[in-house]
């Protein structure tokens, strides 16, 4: 039960300042375009927040590219749009925060082998809902999502898209309930990223073998028996090692119900 409202609110209100700049080689006008500054929610996805910016930069690129797909990069690294914005920032600049976050906007040479295509917001919604279902499978064997109606799914997405905390959490708290008679989920939906971006996903139970609540430290010991001093960051904060996994998953998952943790 995710009832620590204060934590949920703090996490929800997180925003990042982004400075978008058009790639130099794509500028076709004589006049240099102004950089576009905008505050974007940490929990959102790039395709949801870039409409205005795109309109602004479209004027300055050659006409033939006006229909091609836009993509972003930070320091030459193409940004995967299907990762939440806050998580991308933590992954790429977590150790070395620099604000505003300077990103370059491209309209040509789409890096096919790195990025997925995102033609419209429906693609983002499909990805989001799929991830939520995946998390539900791990947590409740998929029972909660399957018992929910389509309008509930829609409300979930709309709440996220329109930045409506109450709308979103009205539905999401059902996904944070325990599974059956047990206290807690069946498994914790968790994605662990190393600093080169490789993701690994493991089956992690919120309980130890003796039935006690597993803490972060215990999980780390399970997953990385050889490493020491492993620290995990999410939402821009470093998680204390004695945090219970169940609480962590309930309160600090991203809207897609997954914990995205950067390992460093």
């Amino acid at each position: 039960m995710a009832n620590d409202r204060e934590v949920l609110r703090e996490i929800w209100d997180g925003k990042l300042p982004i400075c978008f700049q058009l790639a130099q080689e794509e500028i076709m006008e004589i006049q240099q375009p102004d950089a576009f500054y905008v505050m974007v929610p940490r929990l959102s996805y790039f395709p949801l927040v870039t409409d205005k910016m795109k309109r602004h930069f479209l004027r300055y690129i050659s006409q033939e590219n006006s229909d091609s797909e836009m993509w972003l990069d930070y320091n030459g690294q193409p940004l995967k749009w299907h990762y939440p914005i806050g998580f991308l920032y933590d992954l790429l600049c977590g150790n070395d925060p620099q604000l505003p976050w300077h990103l370059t906007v491209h309209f040509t040479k789409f890096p096919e082998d790195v990025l997925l295509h995102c033609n419209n917001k429906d693609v983002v919604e499909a990805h989001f809902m799929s991830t939520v279902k995946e998390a539900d499978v791990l947590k409740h064997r998929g029972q909660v999502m399957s018992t929910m109606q389509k309008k509930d799914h829609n409300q979930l997405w709309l709440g996220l898209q329109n930045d409506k905390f109450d709308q979103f959490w009205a539905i999401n708290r059902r996904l944070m309930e325990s599974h059956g008679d047990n206290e807690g989920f069946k498994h914790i939906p968790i994605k662990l990223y190393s600093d080169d971006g490789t993701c690994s996903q493991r089956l992690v139970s919120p309980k130890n073998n003796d039935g006690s609540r597993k803490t972060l430290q215990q999980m780390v010991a399970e997953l990385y028996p050889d490493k020491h001093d492993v620290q995990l960051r999410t939402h821009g904060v470093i998680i204390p090692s004695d945090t219970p996994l169940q609480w962590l998953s309930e309160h600090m998952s991203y809207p897609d119900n997954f914990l995205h943790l950067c390992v460093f």
Partner: protein
Amino acid sequence: MEGGDWRNRIISQLQARNKYETAAFQDLITFQSRLFDNVNTLKNENLQLTLLNERIRFTGTDSVLSGTGTASNERIQALEQKILIQQEELTSMHRRRGENAQQIMSLNEKVHDLEKQLQAKDIIISENTAVIASLRAEIQMYETNMTELQGLNQVLRDEHQALQIAFAAIEDKLRKAQDENRSLVERLIKYKAKDADKMNEENEHFIKKKTEKVRKELEEAARESGSRSSGSGSSEDKILDSISQFYGTLPSKAALRFDAHDGEVNAVKWSPTDRLVATGGADRKVKLWDVAKCVVEIKGTLVGSNAGVMSVDFDSTGAYIVGASNDFASRVWTVADQRLRHTLTGHSGKVMAAKFLGEPTKVITGSHDRTLKIWDLRSKMCTETKFAGSSCNDLVTSDGAGSTIISGHFDKRIRFWDIRTEMSANDIMLQGKVTSLDLSRDNNYLLACVRDDTIQLIDLRMNTIVRSFSHESFKVGCDWSRAAFGPGGRLLSVGAADGAAYVWNTHSGRLETILKDHTSAVTAVSWHPQSGLLASVDRGKRAIIWGDL
């Protein structure tokens, strides 16, 4: 709400984060975006104004706002505009006219083509109608033909039916006639039998009388002086002879004498039924004489032969008579109306003898061309030819069916033929030419008159000569001199060169009597089958009937 140090740490970290990341920049960026938007809107307005400016400058007026001095210009402009429009319309009209002309031409062509097609189709149609008409006419013709044929068919069918009915009726009649015939024949047979019986009775009676007489005489004779032997046989023989004498009714005197023909008379035959005798002569005629009453009446003359008639024969019923002639043909007449019925030509030599074979539908002829021919009178054709190898002088048929034929030939042979075979089954060699043959009534004995002046009696069962008859004064007159058995078979007679008819007893071999009355050689003799009358004819046109009439 769970507590714990970790929660506090998390909360504080989050708050710090938010302060650092969000709060610091929120206002700045908000202002920036507002400015940005303003700039954009201003830019857009600017752009629009410049565009307007450009447009106004292009159209050549100083300011958009002052509209007074431009009224006439506007009118001019409007008029110019109108002219432009009209010109455009004109060009488009011209173009359209050109297109229409084009269309008209193509349509004309089409019309032309269609007309041609139409013409062609018309021609085809007319041809077709013509064909149809002709076909119809044909159909009509066929129909009429068919009705005609049907009519004909019907007629034929009707005729056929009528014919069938007639046929049925005639068949009935035939059947009836056949039945009648059969019944008549039966009756006839019955009558004949009756007659025969009567005759037999008569004869018996006669014999009885005679025997009585003889007994009486014998008694007288015996009474008189022992026995007077004549030396010519035993008493039995004598008795037999006497009996036979009377039985045979040996003719002793000539009852009738008449001239039969204008030339040699070659053949004589009694009719088996009534007292009719037929004679055939060198005058090519066959004459029928009736001796029923004590005078001889010529019954009829059968003409038709082109040369002398060598032999005549009656059929078993006495209705037909066949005459063998020297013109290589034989002829069959009906006795009743004396009409020539058949002429049997085919021989290449004189036909010496012709006899009916059993039923009066077959005739066998023997000829000098060394063949015997069997003729079927219904088909009037020669059905068989037997090659004898020597001229046939006479022939007899053995039994009623005629299955065995015996012929006497120039080469001194008597040949026996089975009617079915070609070759002679048997032959007997004699001492001289065979001039005539006769068969006894029981078909067991054959009489042959031979040119060596003898008569040979041949037993057919043993095929040997039983007896031979001769006399010092008996000489055979000609090559066709005919001998004949008497009615009982006990007597035989033959004509001699000296004009006498010699009569022998076949059993004893004794010459019974010599009947001399002819002046020339006797050519043929014939016994009446019942009454014992003997007819003889000679070379001097004469015919004599011997016996008691």
